[in-house]
């Protein structure tokens, strides 16, 4: 008998398992820290602060003129020119430059500026104690993401292959992608701390399901998975999974915040209440919507590529690049659902909540494909390993 060529390195496999449990524990701690941040974040103080902020934005008319005059006066003393840009996100940037002649100032005005979206102040609501929790949470998330990364790497070392050869490994790797993505965006200075709670929640949930339901020991691959396309196709699906989760969460928050904002506009919300307190600290609905769109639009070509890579692999493994295998079918359905979303966004009348509903449908299709089809429907994709 010919024995399996390369034995499994159980030492690394055990290390990987310990790392997965550690990452799960640290994600849980991070999740709790975010919860504390949201809970203890400035309550009434927030209300005051955001009111002040809103007033500032609302007063743009008079204030802008005053600002402009003051800055104009200042500008005339120094030979620089300043161009102030009020972006659609409500933020302003000022570009300056030294010029030869005496200089003035220019305002670039964006239409609709009368009510630029006002982002909430963030989970901590400016409260120092809460902010400390928030920062602890971010550090813990970073640590957990790194533990997760190491778990994936050691698993790969133990089996001498890409560490996403079954549903357990896939799930662990997806939580790694989502949390690393989050940490990288934070490190790049993006204002995404509000995603911390859902990202850590998703990671704890994902890892929990992975170890309890999907777990299999580190082993080599069945021949059908023996291909470099495993690197390409599955890692594509994985990155899409992590990013699409973020896109769906942003869409969910968008809908919640949008409902809140429109109720607030009709004076239907109880000011200072717990819900309004939380919602006031979230980014503006428009900002959340923009995030969701950007993530989903970024992922769509990648998802298309993933499907193509899968088709090339199918051609090599099964004899035809497309045979409507259940997994292929659901990948196609997911793709169409996201295409519908992008079309809907490009067409008038389907923005906002309606488009967000398409995101939910599309993401549900993705989840069903990754898990439902692998577990409940027997196709040629013999992936689950459970």
């Amino acid at each position: 008998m010919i024995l399996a060529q390369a034995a499994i390195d159980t030492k690394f496999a055990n290390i990987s398992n310990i790392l997965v449990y550690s990452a799960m524990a640290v994600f849980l701690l991070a999740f709790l820290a975010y919860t504390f941040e949201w809970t203890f974040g400035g309550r009434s103080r927030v209300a005051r602060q955001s009111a002040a902020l809103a007033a500032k934005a609302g007063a743009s008319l008079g204030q802008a003129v005053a600002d402009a005059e003051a800055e104009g006066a200042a500008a005339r003393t120094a030979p620089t020119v300043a161009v102030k840009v009020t972006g659609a996100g409500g933020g302003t940037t000022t570009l300056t430059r030294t010029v030869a002649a005496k200089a003035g100032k220019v305002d670039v005005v964006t239409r609709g500026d009368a009510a630029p979206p006002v982002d909430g102040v963030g989970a901590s609501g400016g409260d120092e104690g809460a902010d400390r929790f928030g920062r602890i949470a971010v550090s813990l998330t970073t640590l957990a993401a790194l533990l997760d990364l190491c778990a994936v790497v050691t698993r790969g070392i133990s089996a001498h292959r890409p560490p996403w050869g079954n549903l357990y490994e896939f799930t662990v790797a997806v939580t790694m992608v989502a949390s690393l993505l989050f940490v990288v965006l934070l490190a790049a200075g993006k204002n995404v701390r509000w995603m911390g709670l859902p990202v850590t929640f998703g990671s704890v949930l994902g890892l929990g399901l992975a170890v309890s339901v999907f777990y299999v020991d580190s082993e080599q691959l069945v021949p059908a998975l023996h291909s470099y396309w495993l690197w390409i196709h599955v890692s594509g699906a994985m990155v899409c999974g992590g990013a699409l989760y973020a896109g769906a969460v942003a869409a969910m928050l968008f809908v919640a915040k949008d409902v809140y904002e429109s109720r607030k506009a009709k004076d239907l919300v109880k000011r200072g209440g717990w819900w309004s307190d939380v919602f006031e600290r979230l980014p503006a609905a428009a900002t959340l919507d923009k995030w969701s769109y950007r993530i989903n639009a970024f992922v769509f070509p990648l998802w298309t590529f993933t499907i193509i890579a899968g088709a090339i692999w199918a051609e090599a493994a099964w004899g035809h690049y497309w045979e409507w295998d259940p997994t292929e079918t659901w990948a196609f359905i997911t793709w169409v659902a996201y295409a519908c979303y992008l079309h809907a966004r490009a067409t008038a009348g389907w923005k906002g909540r309606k488009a967000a509903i398409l995101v939910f449908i599309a993401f549900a299709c993705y989840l069903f494909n990754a898990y439902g089809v692998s577990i409940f429907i027997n196709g040629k994709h013999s992936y689950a390993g459970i």
Partner: protein
Amino acid sequence: MTTDLDAAEQLSSAPKEDNGGGGDVGIGLLGWLRWMWRQLTSMRTALILLFLLSLAAIPGSLVPQTAASPTKVADFVAKHSTLAPIYQKLGLFHVYSSFWFSAIYLLLFISLAGCIVPRTWQFVGVLRAQPPAAPKHLVRLPVYATWRSAGTGTSADAERTLTAAESLLRRRRFRVARSGDAITSEKGYLREVGNLLFHISLFGMLIAFAVGKLFGGMGTVLVIEGKAFSNNVAMYDDFMPSTFYTADSLVPFGFKLDKFEATYQASGTQVGTARTFQANVSYWTGSDPSKAVKASIQVNHPLAIDGSNVYLTAHGYAPVFQVTDAKGDVVFDGPTPCLPQDGNITSTCAIKVNDGYVDNKGNATQLGISGLFTPTAAPASEFKTTGPHSVFPDLLDPHMYLTVYHGDLGNNSGAPQSIYELDTKHMTQYTVDGQPLKFDRQPGQGFKLPSGGTVTFTGVEQWANFTVAHNPGTGWALISAVMAVVGLIGSLFVQRRRIWVRAVEGPDGATTVEIAGLARSESARIAEELADLALALQDTAPADLPDEPEDPAAGNTATTAAEKE
């Protein structure tokens, strides 16, 4: 809103939606046809069709499909006597070739064509024409800035400003056109190119897919070690032709299975899981086997021979039996492929001795040996609960559990017979004292039949199942798919935008500079881009005069900015 603003804001060559009103539709058949065409090619219809297509794809993943697994369909039909006929009528067992599924995607692609063709012309028109002239009131555009400049005091300041702006924009690779006191510039045409490329590629993909379906075909064949296959219909176990790929389309080639090798996980929780499969073959193109070349076929690594690919799809064992009749003449000697039942290759076998057997009374009869083959037999102590079965897929301890029948194998009844099953309707089991005769044999062992003959289990060979597929159009499908991704990236991430600059010299000699920009809502960068330009223009026209209060556009920018369209 003024019409020049309308024109200026048309940033996509997407046809205008006429919301079903169909104002200029005439009466009569032509009018109706035109109306239907408009409806079909509208974006909303395309969206609905797209959505329908994904809905229509769902049942195919839940109901067993004939194309994927005829046996599962047969199972389903047997189990659901009321549902099955309804499903049959609806074509639910072959969703992806059903009329309704085809109808949706054909409509979608007609709609797509109706979209692409006019858009392409329109886009070519856009490329040939100048960017549209500047609207009268730039202040109404989404992004706007203005300032006054005393300039250098010489005349023609406005002219110099415009020239400077033109070269600045050109340097940023905008297309620039001058009309009167203003310039118009536009950038990001690649968005539209990408969009068209994407949609055209979808078309390419459909065509490639159709070519594959119409001109492609495949067949499957089981080959035992040491045996050969040559590419003609008679050799196939199962041949799936298509409209233009028939028995006559098969080109001559062949291969011989020299050896099949497999390795299995020997320990751990996944013990027995296959790790590698490899079929070592000698193949030849044309009809001359003496020119054979050695090659190996593995899962994921098909062998390409003369326009066809040969895939390794399954494998199993073929026990070799020798049967002699009552006179001692060998009437059967060879391997019989058995059908694997589980991961450890517990297999069912049906060995059929069709002719030649004569029993001790001188009567000719047919023999059928029904057996269970286990490459590594479970210990007999386990049989009570689970019966004989295999515990490992490799040949560690092969056993054959046999019972023997005599009579009529039923070959001549006309009904197709499975090679793995025995039809015992017209056969009688050999018994001893009323008990069915049963044997458990290892290679090399045999037994004597009550009718005088002998059966010997001489050894085990392996078989491999191959799919020979001819898939024309695959390369085109791939090219189209790659183009689709490239187009998609352009269509999603390139921002098409316009920037206008107007410079007018007032009666006091000062120049009023106005710049305005427009982009699709998904891109917020236009404001920064405009600011950059405003900054760069300071060299030529520095902002050094306070805005005049009576100037309608300046001084109250905030008010005009707040103006909602």
